[in-house]
């Protein structure tokens, strides 16, 4: 028998393949797994919702941090002016 013919036969070896029956207890196993997993199962919508809330929180935090930073910068400006004045007051030279 030639090589080509044998390879063709191998390729056709799944012809008339029979459907295999399942383990009869498989459905009970599935039900049990569903019951056990129900409490921890998260739908995709819930995952997206929690992810967007997380991003929103980070965004809010960033805004607050930037605002606080700006306010503290402003405060620093005024205190430095005050420092300058006080410095002048304290260390001014009188002739």
């Amino acid at each position, binding site marked *: 028998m030639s*090589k080509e013919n*044998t*390879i063709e*036969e*191998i*390729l056709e*070896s*799944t*012809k*008339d*393949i*029979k*459907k*295999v*029956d*399942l*383990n009869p207890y*498989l*459905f009970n*196993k*599935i*039900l049990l*797994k*569903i*019951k056990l*997993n*129900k409490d921890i*199962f998260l*739908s*995709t919508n819930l995952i997206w919702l929690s992810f967007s809330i997380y991003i929103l929180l980070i965004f809010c935090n960033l805004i607050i941090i930037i605002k606080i930073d700006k306010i503290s910068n402003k405060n620093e400006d005024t205190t430095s002016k005050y420092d300058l004045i006080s410095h002048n007051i304290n260390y001014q030279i009188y002739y």
Partner: protein
Amino acid sequence: MNSHSNSNIELIYNEHSKMVYNLCLGYLHSIEDAEEVTQDVFIKVYHSISEFKNKSSLKTWIYRITINKCLDFIKAKKRLKRMSDMVSIFNSKNELIHSGKNFEHPGILLENKEKSILLFKAIELLPKYQKTVFILSKIEGLNNKEIGEILEKSISAVENLIHRAKDNLKISLSINFKEYQKKEIK
């Protein structure tokens, strides 16, 4: 879990479980793995049935879930094998996760068993789309239109994939041909 959803999943299971299990067997070449993935498929169906929008038939939808689950399972197993290979470099006592056994499909005719072992070995080496199309066509016995619907591809694309899969299988079978001849002589 209420009784209504319970009976729904039971109906779906009774109608499609054989198809799911046999498709898993075609992909995974292991009865234990096929049973595990079949369970995962129906758990996924149970949780996602509300997302099914009748754009395709229920059978097509379940086929897609099964294919994805099988491919994910193969990917995870390969990752695990890579990890075990890495560990075995440092510890020679570790056993390999994949034993590389010859898979004898329980549904194959007796006279074709030896040949099908070689075929299943060669199928394992195919790229995922070619593998899927070949399994759906030659093992599941679906026509090109049905395969196209499942994979969301045109009929000509499916034909092309089957043709490429056959070419690749012929190449890998011709490489293993000598091994097969030796067995035949014995």
